[in-house]
C-alpha cells in the first residue's frame, strides 16, 4: 500500500548516486598489487639480508627510506612481502569461490528446477551440511593432506556450497514460473538446456554479488588459518603467516604485526563495500543478505 510506483521515477538514476569510493580505492590498490606485484614491489619478497634484520619503518629513528615499512627478522622487505601476499589471498579466494560456487550453483539449479523429492533431499543435506563448523573439516583434511593452500581451498570448497545452493534454488524457483521458461519447455528444450541457457543467465547478477561479498570473508578466513599454521607454510608471504611470524617479536617490532593486518583490512573493506553497493544496485529488492 505504500508503493510509490506511480511516481514515474527512473530507478536507474539512483545507481550513480553513491559510489563506494572508499571501497573502490581499496580494490584498485589490491588489484594493482595482484597484477603488477613485480613492478611495484621494491625487493624480492623472499630474499633478505640478515644485516638489515628488523629495521623499523622509515619515519622511525633507525628506519631507512630503502625499506619503507621496515624489514622482518630475516631482513626481508615488509612492503614487498605485503604486495606479493595479495596474490596469495586473491588466488585462494578465486580458487575457493570457483570450487564451491560451481558446486553450489549446480546443486541449487537441480534442487530448484526438479523440485519435489530431489529438492527435499538436497535441502535437508544443505541444512545438515551447514551445521558443521568448518574448522572440523579443516582439521580432518589437514591431518590427511597436510596444511597448505590446497587444503584451505578444498576445505572452503566442501563447506561453502550450501549458501550458494540455497540462493540459487530460491531464484530458480521463481524463474521457473516465468513465461520464457515455460515457453522453452513448450518448445521442447531439454531440461539441461533450459537450466543452463535459459535459467542460468538470469542468475549471473546474483552470483556476482554473492562472490564479491564472500571474497572478504574468505580473505579473513584464509589469513586466520595461515596464522594458526593450518594454511600456507613458510616462506610464503601470506598475510596471516606474516602475522604469525611477527607475533614473537611483538614487544619491539610492532610493524611486523601491524601492517599485514592493515593489508587484510584494505582488501576486505574493498570487497565488502563494493559488494554492498553492488547488491543495492543489482538487487534492489534485497533478496540476498
Amino acid at each position, binding site marked *: *500500500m505504500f508503493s510509490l510506483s*506511480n*511516481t*514515474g*521515477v527512473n530507478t536507474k*538514476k*539512483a545507481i550513480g548516486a553513491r559510489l563506494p569510493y572508499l571501497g573502490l580505492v581499496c580494490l584498485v590498490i589490491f588489484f594493482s598489487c595482484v597484477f603488477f606485484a613485480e613492478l611495484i614491489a621494491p625487493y624480492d619478497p623472499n630474499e633478505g639480508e640478515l644485516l638489515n634484520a628488523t629495521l623499523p619503518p622509515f619515519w622511525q629513528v633507525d628506519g631507512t627510506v630503502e625499506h619503507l615499512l621496515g624489514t622482518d627478522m630475516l631482513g626481508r622487505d615488509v612492503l614487498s612481502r605485503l604486495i606479493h601476499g595479495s596474490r596469495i589471498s586473491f588466488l585462494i579466494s578465486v580458487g575457493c569461490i570457483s570450487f564451491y560456487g560451481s558446486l553450489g550453483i549446480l546443486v541449487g539449479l537441480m534442487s530448484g528446477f526438479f523440485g519435489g523429492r530431489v529438492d527435499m533431499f538436497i535441502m535437508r543435506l544443505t541444512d545438515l551440511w551447514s551445521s558443521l563448523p568448518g574448522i572440523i573439516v579443516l582439521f580432518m583434511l589437514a591431518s590427511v593432506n597436510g596444511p597448505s593452500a590446497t587444503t584451505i581451498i578444498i576445505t572452503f570448497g566442501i563447506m561453502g556450497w550450501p549458501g550458494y545452493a540455497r540462493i540459487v534454488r530460491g531464484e530458480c524457483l521463481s524463474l521457473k514460473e516465468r513465461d520464457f521458461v515455460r515457453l522453452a519447455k513448450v518448445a521442447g528444450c531439454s531440461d539441461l538446456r533450459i537450466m543452463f541457457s535459459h535459467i542460468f543467465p538470469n542468475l549471473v547478477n546474483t552470483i556476482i554479488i554473492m562472490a564479491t561479498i564472500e571474497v572478504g570473508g574468505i580473505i579473513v578466513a584464509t589469513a586466520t588459518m595461515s596464522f594458526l599454521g593450518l594454511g600456507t607454510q613458510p616462506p610464503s608471504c601470506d598475510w596471516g603467516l606474516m602475522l604469525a611470524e611477527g607475533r614473537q617479536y611483538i614487544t619491539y617490532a610492532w610493524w611486523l604485526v601491524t601492517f599485514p593486518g592493515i593489508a587484510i583490512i584494505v582488501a576486505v573493506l574493498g570487497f565488502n563495500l563494493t559488494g554492498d553497493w553492488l547488491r543495492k544496485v543489482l538487487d534492489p529488492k534485497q533478496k540476498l543478505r
Partner: protein
Amino acid sequence: MDKNTTELLKIENLQTSFFTKKGEVKAVDGVDLTIESGETVGLVGESGCGKSTISLSLMQVLPQPAGKITGGKVWFKGENLLEKTKEEMRRLRGDRISMIMQDPMVAMNQLLKVGYQISEVLKYHENSSSSLNLKDRCIDLLKRVKVPAPESRINDYPFQFSGGMSQRALIAMGIANNPDLLIADEPTTALDVTIAAQVLKLMQEVQKETGASIILITHDLASIAQICTRVVVMYAGRVVEKAPIKTFFKNPAHPYSVGLIQSVPVLGRRRDQLYSIKGQPPSLMDLPKGCRFAPRCEHVFDKCLNEYPPEVTLEDRHKVSCWRFV
C-alpha cells in the same frame, strides 16, 4: 465549520509528502474534505492518487521517516489532530477512529493469535465499561462480524483463517470500541466477488448498529454505489469532485469522473467499446502547473494548462474543480 453542526471530520488543505532519496513526492497536495456524522463517503481514484495517504495522515501512522504532513489542519470533533501529542493520538486510534486495511493476510501479525490481536484494541483503550472479560468480548466481537464458532477461532492463528474470515476479524478490530469514524481502505480488493459482497453488507449493518461514519476508499465504483451516500473523487493528490451518490452517477461534472464512470464495464455492451482514459497520471514529483488532469482531458483549453481551477459549487453539495464550470 459554520453551517453544519453534525460535522465529524473536516480536513483543510492537507498536504502530505514522502521524502525519498529521489526527491519529494507530494502524495496529498491540498485536500479539503468534510465528513458528517453517520454518513458513508466513497473516496475514489486511481492507485497512487493519495487516497490511502489521506487516511494514514489523519491517523498519523505514515511510514517513517519518509512520510511527513507538511501542512493543513485535520479537525476531528472540533479538535485539530495535527496538534495532538503522540500519546493522545494513540488513544484516539482504534478507539474513536479506526481503520480496516486492504489485505487482511498481511495486515495481521502471522505469529500472534487472532484472539490476541483483537483483544489489543480493547486492552489499550480503557473506556468501555463492559462487565465481560477480554476473552468474552473478543468472542462477542467475532460473533458480531459473523465468524462461525468464535469460541475456538480466537485461539487460531491468521494462517488458519480464510481471506474472508480474516477480513471479518479485521472489521471486528475496527468496530471493537464503537468508533465515530471507520476508514475502510479497499476492504474488498483482496477478496473473491461473493465474499466481497458479504463484507460490504456486513459493513453496512455495522454502520446501522453503531452510527459511525465510514470512509470507503476504493477504485471500485460498484461497491461505492452499493453502500455510499456521497462520493469524493481524487486525482494526483487533489480532490477534483464531490457529489451525492445519485448526482455523481447521473450527472458527473469533472471529465475525470466522467471517464471513471464510462470505464466501468456494463453487461450487454460490446467489449471493444469499453472506455479507457488515455495517458498516465502525472509524476507526483513533477506536477504540471495547471490542472493535473489537463494532459489527459478531452476538453482541455489554454487556461487548464496554466492555472489550477478553483472549486465551484454546481448545486447543493456538488462541487467540482474544473475550468469548464467557472
